[in-house]
C-alpha cells in the first residue's frame, strides 16, 4: 500500500514548461472538449426504465434496495467506452461528450424543446429522431407523475405557501428539485482500501444487524458490486479493442488500460495512473446514481501526491507523462454537460458541471502541505485552459513564495483561474459550525467555492438560492410584489414607516419569512428523496454511513449541513443604506417618493439618480457606515440560517455567491435604490456594485476584509477585473501578490479574477468565432465567454476595471 504522506522532491521543483504541441493526442482531445459537438445521452434513463418496467414500477421493493438494484443494472449495462487515444477508460455518458439526463429530477423540463435541441442557438445538444421518440413516448411519460417536483407538489398540495412562493422564482430557488450532489465523496477511502476493501468492511457489519440497517448495508454492497462490474466491462472492452488494434503504441496503452481496470477500483491503487483511473470510474458510477451538479473531487494534490512521488522515485513515471495522464483526467471531467433548457440559459447560462478541485493548504495537523502535485495541477490548468473542473487554490501565510508566484502566473496566463481562498478565515468558519479542527484543516471547495470537509461533511452546499433583493421589494409593497399580491407578511405601507429601524425591521421580517419557506420546501424535497432517491453508492463512499448503518439522507454522514447562496447582498446593503441616509437622515425625499422613482426607473429623476451614484456612500469603498450595515445583515442571516434544521438534522449555512443568477434575477427586476436600473444585472456574489466602485482594489479589499467571514460558512465570491496589459509591467505582478496577501491577512476570505482587456471582451462579443475558448470567471465557476447570454456578457464587460 502506498503511504498517504508524500514528500517534496526538490529536483522536481525545477519545472520544464510544456505546450500542447508536446502532446498531440491531448491537443485533439482538448479541442474536442472545448468545441466538439455535445450529444444528448438517454442511456441511463433508458436502462433505468427498462429495469423498473421489468420489475413493475418504483414500488416493487423498498426504496434503498430498489435504488441499489437500479444502479447496479445501469452500471452492468452501461456502454464501456474507450475512445481512440484514451488513456483512461470510461465516460460519463454513452457519448464522448454528452449531456447527462435525469428524468426523475428536472429532466422533463427539456420536453418542450426536444425537436429543436440540436439547432437551438445557444448551446445546442445533438440528438437523433429515434432518441427523441423514445424520450417522448416512453421515458418521459413514465416519470410524468413521479419525478421530484411532482412528488413534492403531491405531498404539499397546490395551495401550500412554500410551494407557491417557489413558483415565483424571483424569491428563492430550491436546487434540490434537480440534485443534491454539491458534495465531495471520500475518494481517499477508495484509493486506500479499494471497492473490495469497502465491501469486505460492509460484509463484516451485515452479520451483526437486521431490519432497515441490514437492507442499507446490502444496498451499499449491491451498488459497489455495480461499480466492479463497470470496471470489469471496461477491462474487457480494452482487451476487445486490443485484438483488432494495428498500432503498436496504442496496443501498449490498451493492454495497460485492460490491466489497470482489472485492478482498480476493486483494489487499492498502487500507481499514479491507477489512482486517476480509480477515481474516474467511481465518478462515472456516481453520475449514474444521481445528477452531477457540482459533484466535486476534493484535494486532488493530496489524493495523488503519494502515488506521484512513489512512481517518480521508482522511475515508473516521468513528469512529462504525469502531465499527460493528469491532463487526460482533467479533460475527462469535462466530458459531461448539465442539461439546461433554453430559458434556463438566462439564469444558469454557460455553466459546466461545476466540479471543484482544490489544491494547496495544510495537512490535518495544520502543517503547510503544498506539494509536487500542487504544482503539477497548476501546470495542467495552465496547459489546458478549460472551463472544467473548477480549480480553487488555498492560500496560507506560511505558503512557499514560489507557490504564490506560480498561482499569480497561472491567473495571468489563463485570465480566470484558479479562484483563491484563505485558510486563515475558512478554517475558523468551519470550526464555528462544529467541524473538528483536523477535519476543518482538510477542507476543500465544493461546486463553485463552498468549503466542506471532504468525504465527511454532507453539505449539499447549493441547496437553496435566495434573492436578497426580494425582501426589500416585499417590504416596499407591504408584502406584495409589482405583479403578485399577498406574497409576504403585511409589514406596513410606506407612509407608515417613521424611522429607518422600522423599515429595516420590515425587510428583516420579509427575509425571515422567505428563508423559513425556502428551507421548509427544501426539507420536504429531502424527505421526498428518501422515497425516490436514496443514495447507497454515495453513502458507501462517505465517512459515517458505514460506521453508523445510517443512510446519508437520514443523517449518516459525520457532519450534516445544507448550504444557501444569498444572491445580490451588495444591492440590498446599498439600497438599505440609501433609504437610511436619503430618506431618514438627510430627508432628501420620502419613501413614497423613492417608490415612485423606482417605478419610473429613475426617469425624470436624473438629479437624484446622479446623487445616489456619485455622492452617496456605497459598499466596497471602505466606508465604515456602509460596511457596518453589511455586517449587520450578515450577522442577521447567519443567526437565522444556523437556527434552522435541515431534514438530516444539520444546520443551514449562509454563503454569498451567485453563478449567473444575479444577471437573471436582475433582468426580471425593476430599478433599485442603489442605482441599479430596470433589467440591469444585480451584483455578483459579494462583489460591490460596479457603477460605484470608485476607490480602487484596496478599498474593495478593505470593505470585504472588514466583514466577519466566519459567518459565511457556505463561502463567498468577490469578483475583480484587471486589464491584462497591466501585467506586462513586471512591478505590477508583485503589487498584485502584495494586495492579495494584504487582503487575506486582514480578513478576506475569497477572491477570483478576470484578467482581460476590455477591448478583447467587447471584440469577443462582436466576433465570437475569434474566441472559441476565452474563459471568464462568473461568480463561482469559470465559463467560456461565447457560451454566455448577451445579458451576462454585458455584465462581464461592464464590471469595474481595477487599477493597481
Amino acid at each position: 500500500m502506498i503511504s498517504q504522506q508524500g514528500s517534496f522532491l526538490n529536483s522536481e521543483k525545477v519545472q520544464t514548461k510544456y505546450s500542447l504541441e508536446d502532446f498531440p493526442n491531448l491537443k485533439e482531445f482538448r479541442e474536442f472538449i472545448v468545441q466538439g459537438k455535445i450529444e444528448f445521452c438517454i442511456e441511463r434513463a433508458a436502462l433505468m426504465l427498462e429495469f423498473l418496467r421489468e420489475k413493475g414500477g418504483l414500488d416493487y421493493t423498498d426504496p434503498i434496495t430498489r435504488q441499489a438494484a437500479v444502479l447496479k443494472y445501469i452500471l452492468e449495462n452501461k456502454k464501456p467506452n474507450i475512445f481512440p487515444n484514451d488513456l483512461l477508460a470510461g465516460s460519463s455518458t454513452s457519448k464522448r461528450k454528452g449531456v447527462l439526463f435525469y428524468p426523475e429530477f428536472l429532466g422533463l423540463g427539456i420536453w418542450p424543446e426536444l425537436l429543436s435541441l440540436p439547432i437551438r442557438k445557444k448551446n445546442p445538444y445533438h440528438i437523433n429522431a429515434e432518441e427523441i421518440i423514445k424520450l417522448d413516448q416512453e421515458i418521459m411519460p413514465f416519470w410524468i407523475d413521479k419525478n421530484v417536483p411532482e412528488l413534492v407538489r403531491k405531498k404539499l398540495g397546490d395551495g401550500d405557501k412554500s410551494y407557491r412562493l417557489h413558483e415565483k422564482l424571483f424569491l428563492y430557488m430550491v436546487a434540490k428539485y434537480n440534485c443534491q450532489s454539491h458534495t465531495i465523496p471520500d475518494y481517499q477511502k477508495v484509493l486506500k482500501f479499494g471497492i473490495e476493501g469497502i465491501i469486505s468492511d460492509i460484509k463484516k457489519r451485515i452479520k451483526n444487524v437486521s431490519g432497515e440497517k441490514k437492507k442499507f448495508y446490502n444496498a451499499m454492497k449491491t451498488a459497489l458490486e455495480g461499480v466492479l462490474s463497470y470496471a470489469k466491462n471496461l477491462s474487457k472492452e480494452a482487451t476487445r479493442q486490443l485484438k483488432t488494434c494495428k498500432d503498436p503504441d496504442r496496443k501498449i496503452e490498451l493492454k495497460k488500460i485492460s490491466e489497470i481496470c482489472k485492478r482498480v477500483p476493486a483494489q487499492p491503487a498502487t500507481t499514479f495512473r491507477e489512482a486517476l483511473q480509480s477515481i474516474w470510474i467511481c465518478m462515472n458510477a456516481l453520475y449514474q446514481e444521481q445528477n452531477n451538479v457540482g459533484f466535486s473531487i476534493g484535494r486532488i494534490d493530496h489524493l495523488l501526491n503519494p502515488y506521484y512521488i512513489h512512481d517518480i522515485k521508482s522511475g515508473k513515471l516521468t513528469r512529462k507523462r504525469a502531465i499527460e495522464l493528469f491532463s487526460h483526467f482533467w479533460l475527462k471531467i469535462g466530458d459531461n454537460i448539465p442539461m439546461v433548457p433554453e430559458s434556463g440559459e438566462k439564469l444558469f447560462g454557460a455553466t459546466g458541471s461545476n466540479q471543484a478541485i482544490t489544491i494547496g493548504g495544510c495537512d490535518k495537523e495544520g502543517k503547510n502541505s503544498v506539494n509536487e502535485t500542487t504544482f503539477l495541477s497548476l501546470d495542467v490548468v495552465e496547459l489546458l485552459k478549460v472551463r472544467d473542473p473548477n480549480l480553487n487554490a488555498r492560500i496560507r501565510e506560511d505558503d512557499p513564495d514560489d507557490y504564490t508566484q506560480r498561482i499569480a502566473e497561472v491567473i495571468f496566463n489563463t485570465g480566470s483561474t484558479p479562484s483563491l481562498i484563505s485558510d486563515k478565515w475558512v478554517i475558523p468558519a468551519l470550526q464555528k459550525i462544529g467541524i473538528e479542527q483536523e477535519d476543518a484543516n482538510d477542507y476543500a471547495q465544493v461546486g463553485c467555492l463552498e468549503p466542506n470537509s471532504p468525504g465527511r461533511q454532507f453539505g449539499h452546499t447549493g441547496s437553496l438560492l435566495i434573492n436578497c433583493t426580494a425582501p426589500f421589494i416585499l417590504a416596499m409593497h407591504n408584502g406584495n410584489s409589482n405583479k403578485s399580491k399577498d406574497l409576504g407578511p403585511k409589514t406596513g405601507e410606506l407612509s407608515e414607516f417613521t424611522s429607518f429601524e422600522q423599515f429595516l425591521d420590515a425587510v428583516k421580517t420579509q427575509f425571515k419569512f422567505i428563508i423559513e419557506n425556502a428551507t421548509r420546501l427544501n426539507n420536504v424535497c429531502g424527505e421526498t428523496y428518501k422515497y425516490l432517491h436514496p443514495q447507497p453508492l454515495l453513502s458507501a463512499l462517505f465517512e459515517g454511513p458505514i460506521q453508523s448503518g445510517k443512510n446519508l439522507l437520514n443523517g449518516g454522514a459525520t457532519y450534516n449541513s445544507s448550504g444557501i447562496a444569498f444572491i445580490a447582498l451588495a444591492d440590498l446593503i446599498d439600497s438599505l443604506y440609501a433609504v437610511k441616509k436619503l430618506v431618514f437622515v438627510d430627508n432628501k425625499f420620502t419613501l413614497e417618493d423613492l417608490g415612485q422613482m423606482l417605478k419610473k426607473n429613475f426617469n425624470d429623476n436624473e438629479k437624484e439618480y446622479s446623487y445616489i451614484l456619485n455622492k452617496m456612500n456605497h459598499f466596497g469603498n471602505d466606508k465604515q457606515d456602509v460596511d457596518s450595515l453589511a455586517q449587520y445583515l450578515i450577522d442577521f442571516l447567519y443567526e437565522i440560517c444556523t437556527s434552522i434544521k435541515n431534514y438530516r438534522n444539520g444546520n443551514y449555512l449562509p454563503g454569498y455567491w451567485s453563478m449567473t443568477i444575479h444577471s437573471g434575477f436582475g433582468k426580471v427586476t425593476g430599478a433599485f435604490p442603489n442605482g441599479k436600473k430596470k433589467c440591469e444585472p444585480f451584483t455578483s456574489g459579494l462583489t460591490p456594485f460596479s457603477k460605484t466602485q470608485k476607490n480602487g482594489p484596496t478599498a474593495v479589499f478593505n470593505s470585504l476584509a472588514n466583514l466577519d467571514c466566519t459567518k459565511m460558512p457556505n463561502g463567498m465570491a468577490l469578483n475583480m477585473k484587471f486589464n491584462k496589459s497591466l501585467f506586462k509591467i513586471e512591478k505590477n505582478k508583485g503589487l498584485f501578490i502584495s494586495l492579495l496577501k494584504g487582503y487575506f491577512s486582514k480578513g478576506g476570505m475569497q477572491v477570483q479574477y478576470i484578467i482581460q482587456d476590455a477591448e478583447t471582451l467587447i471584440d469577443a462579443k462582436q466576433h465570437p468565432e475569434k474566441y472559441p475558448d476565452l474563459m471568464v470567471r462568473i461568480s463561482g465557476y469559470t465559463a467560456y465567454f461565447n457560451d454566455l447570454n448577451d445579458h451576462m456578457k454585458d455584465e462581464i464587460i461592464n464590471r469595474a476595471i481595477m487599477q493597481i
Partner: protein
Amino acid sequence: MEKIKLWYYKFLGKLLLDYSHKKLIKLNNEDPLFHNFVSNFKGKIIISTENNEIKRSLIFNGNGNIKYTKKKVNEPDASFIFNSIKDLYKFFRNYGDVYEGMLENRFKIRGNSNILFKYQFLTNYFNPKKEKIPISL
C-alpha cells in the same frame, strides 16, 4: 382608452388561444407524426385568466383524440392561470415558454407542470419561431 386596450387584448387573446388549439386539433387529424406524439398522452388542461374572463379546457384522452372546449373541466391535471388578459395575450402571441412565463410572472401553474411541458412540446411543433429538426416515423 384603458377599456379599449382591454377589449383588444381580450379579443386577440381569445382569437390566438382558439386559433392555436384548433391548429393543434387539425394537425392531430392530418399529420401522422404529430398524431403519434399525441397518441398516448393523457391529460386535462385548463387555460384561464384569474378572473375567468377567458377560460378554455383541453383534453388529451390517451387514445389520440383531443377535445377543446370553452367549459372548465373537472379535476384538471394542470392549469395555466394567467394574471390578466394582457398576460395571456402576450404569452400566446409569442408562443410562450413555460419557464419564461413563470419568470416573467405571467401566470400561476396549478397541478402537474410536467403535463404542461408535454403540452408545450406539442404547441412548439407549429411554433414558427422554433426551428425543428426533420423527423419521420
